[in-house]
């Protein structure tokens, strides 16, 4: 019989096989066209001449268990057939990845070590779909991952603000200043307590904050009265509001507010000073831990100069006799009962028609 005849009668006998050794040591034969679908095996065969006999079987990577290899072969066996339509392939893939999560994980890893990119993408996408829409706890649960992030790490704490060298310098300055002020306070006679009437409500409020469970049902008649009064104000406000067409001039609110005898300039300067004072205090956030280690070395000289100047400015503000200035300003400003202003937005219509008083 000729070779060709043999091929026609017994095609299997002419088929080539590749010898493969799985991670458990077992050696098997795999149809060539199927095995060669895996780039890793392909490389071993072509570049290293492996797989032609039992003795030089292609040794699969550790991440490819026999079970996974079997699955991968199923995949290759299907896809290496040229005639299939895209629809067929897609349908096969969808069914193929339906397996429990553990196997899917193993398969992803195995496909990767065999460099079988289409299968890597298929399994990775499937894993992505499992992860999508889940909370961190759920993800941990599914994949048995440790819960080892600390609360701080989850939030990136305020501590990190000390990384800014300017803030660190300022913090140190304020720490010193605070200390001095505290010493001074201890020596002085402390002012009398605040209104006792207020203390009680403050305690109540504090208990709310500290998680008082019985803080429900806080309907007081006082609140109701307030609300009714406001309702009346509300009824008048919209209809009386003039419609402004220019956005710049639309601060009817501010014009209503500023009908006090306080000098505009004084008010703004007071605001500025208060703001600076606030800023000065805010920088020193109590939760921040600053180290006493000398950090001046890390800053370049030009920046350091600028920082020194800023620090001096702040120091000057802190050194001003704040309580005395407050009295001054208070006596100049008019003491007024704050009226509750109904802020009906404005009348300005922006080009794109966003509406004033309405929540959207």
């Amino acid at each position, binding site marked *: 019989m000729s070779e060709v005849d043999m091929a026609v009668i017994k095609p299997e006998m002419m088929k080539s096989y590749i010898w493969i050794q799985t991670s458990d040591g077992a050696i098997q034969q795999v149809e060539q066209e199927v095995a060669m679908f895996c780039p890793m095996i392909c490389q071993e065969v072509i570049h290293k001449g492996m797989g032609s006999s039992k003795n030089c079987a292609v040794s699969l990577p550790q991440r490819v268990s026999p079970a996974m290899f079997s699955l991968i072969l199923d995949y290759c066996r299907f896809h290496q057939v040229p005639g299939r339509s895209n629809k067929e392939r897609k349908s096969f893939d969808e069914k193929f990845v339906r397996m429990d999560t553990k196997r899917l994980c193993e398969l992803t890893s195995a496909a990767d070590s065999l460099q079988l990119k289409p299968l890597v993408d298929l399994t*990775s996408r499937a894993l992505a779909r499992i*992860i999508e829409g889940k*909370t961190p706890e759920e993800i941990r649960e599914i*994949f048995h991952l440790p819960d080892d*992030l600390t609360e701080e790490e989850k939030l990136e704490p305020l501590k990190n603000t000390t990384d800014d060298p300017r803030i660190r310098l300022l913090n140190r300055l304020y720490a010193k200043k605070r200390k001095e002020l505290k010493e001074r306070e201890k020596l002085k006679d402390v002012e009398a307590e605040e209104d006792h009437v207020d203390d009680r409500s403050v305690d109540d409020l504090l208990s709310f904050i500290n998680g008082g469970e019985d803080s429900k049902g*806080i309907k007081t008649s006082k609140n109701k009265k307030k609300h009714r009064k406001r309702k009346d104000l509300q009824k008048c406000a919209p209809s009386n509001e003039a419609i402004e067409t220019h956005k710049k001039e639309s601060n009817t609110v501010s014009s209503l507010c500023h009908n006090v005898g306080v000098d505009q300039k004084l008010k703004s300067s007071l*605001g500025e000073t208060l703001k600076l004072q606030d800023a000065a205090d805010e920088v020193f956030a109590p939760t921040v831990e600053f180290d006493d280690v000398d950090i001046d070395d890390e800053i370049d000289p030009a920046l350091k100069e600028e920082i020194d100047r800023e620090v001096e400015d702040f120091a000057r503000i802190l050194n001003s006799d704040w309580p005395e200035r407050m009295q001054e300003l208070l006596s100049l400003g008019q003491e007024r009962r*704050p009226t509750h202003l109904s802020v009906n937005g404005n009348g300005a219509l922006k080009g794109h028609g966003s509406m004033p008083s309405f*929540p959207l």
Partner: protein
Amino acid sequence: MLRKASSFPEEMLEHVLSFITSDKDRNAVSLVCKSWYEIERWCRKRIFVGNCYAVRPEMVIRRFPELRSVELKGKPHFADFDLVPDGWGGCVYPWIAALATAYPLLEEIKLKRMVVSDESLEVIAKSFKNFKVLVLSSCEGFSTDGLAAVAANCRNLRGLDLRESEVDDPSGQWLSRFPDSFTSLASLNISCLGAEVSFSALERLVGRCPDLKSLRLNHAVPLDKLANLLRGAPQLVELGTGAYSAELQPDVFSNLAGAFSGCKELRSLSGFWNVFPGYLPAVYPVCSGLTSLNLRDANIQGADLIKLVSQCRSLQRLWVLDYIEDIGLEELAACCKDLTELRVFPSDPYGAEPNVSLTERGLVSVSEGCPKLQSVLYFCRQMTNAALVTIAKNSPRMTCFRLCIIEPRAPDYQTLQPLDLGFGAIVENYKDLRRLSLSGLLTDRVFEYIGTYAKKLEMLSVAFAGDSDMGLHHVLSGCAKLCKLEIRDCPFGDNALLANAAKLETMRSLWMSSCSVSFRACKLLGQKMPRLNVEVIDERGPPDLRPENCPVEKLYIYRTIAGPRFDMPGFVWTMNGDSV
């Protein structure tokens, strides 16, 4: 208990993450465990910062070294209604300066409600060699000089979108700054520009950019020129026309109709300023393919409007003025079965009397006829509980429901009852509701319903509603997923706020204006909650010049890990530890 070993192949995580792109999912992934946190941060390409003051640019840069796209939001939403005074903040420059140094390969910057200076735009233009997309949504503070810098320098720009921004227009010539060799533009939105743009420059630009898919013109581009533009860009998918006015001229009309016929890919239309009804038929050839139609700037009324809308059988999104009236909405419900989003804006919100016949019936019709309805914004003058209950039962897919009854505290006009039951039905039936705006006469009861049922609610807007602190308490204690809460003119005070202080750290922000929160409560909150910035906004002057129990004018509370900000104007005070 023996802990199982992890099954997830960590060496594959980065590849798996390449298929996970939503911010929520990436955030969840980063919180799983230490190793995932590390792997995730190195391959994060896009970041969304919902409040630019919640974190400092240096922190973002340190954590995510490989970003290609940054999205930031500045002012709170109520800034759209001029409730946030000018100068409050939201200046983007510090971010831009930091990003410029850290990410030379940055490709996209998207900003919303931020103050953007020309200087910022110049830095963007010169710092990022591969810059592709700039979106400035409801921004302000820049002029066409800044835009000129972008045009001249960003050789690979694909998208420039200025939606609803306020732009100073000293020169209309900035479009000519795009070099002749520049051909990469895919999306251009200049609809907000007030002044003329150089039409010849625009025409040349459109003609030489074969990838241009989205073009939103401003009203200064006249009708007779529109046809030329369209013929130069038949591949357009989205078009915003310029002004649509002028007396009907047959040749202009036929030219236009011909041009539109050539745009076989057109799916979205907007613009139509000052539309002359006679020209409307020019767009009929594209109507059947349209999925999005925005007529909020168009004064088309009556039959013309209905005829146009009813031809758009594939419509998914419709923005329209209340000229459409109940009768038009009935027609819409009959023709547009794929409708998912409807916004009906008021044509005359300040008029004492209704100028159109648009009532609750229109919305009921749409809910009955359009089963896919997901998102509604509806301005009207009357509503009933019965209508709301019907609407609630008809639209199970609703995720965003914003009802705006124009008169504050308007009751059910038939029964004169509050609309508590109606909105109660809304939250009970809309299981996936994420955004809700309330209006009409509402008592604490509605908030009880919201707290009980609205478990997926993320954003709630409230005005002129409620009776007492219980209202606020119900919302803060009940809505597990609440992210943004904005309130104005409601009798909510200290108790509910302080009792739910911990909740505030789980939300992005809380805005309260013209409510009853005292200065003392603000100070207390600021003192006790270091991870919140408690901002008192008061244009009457410093709050500590008034008694402590005096309510503050406006209050903006947001969680932050950046600490207090340093760029506040004189009328904003941050309540913090030692300032109390």
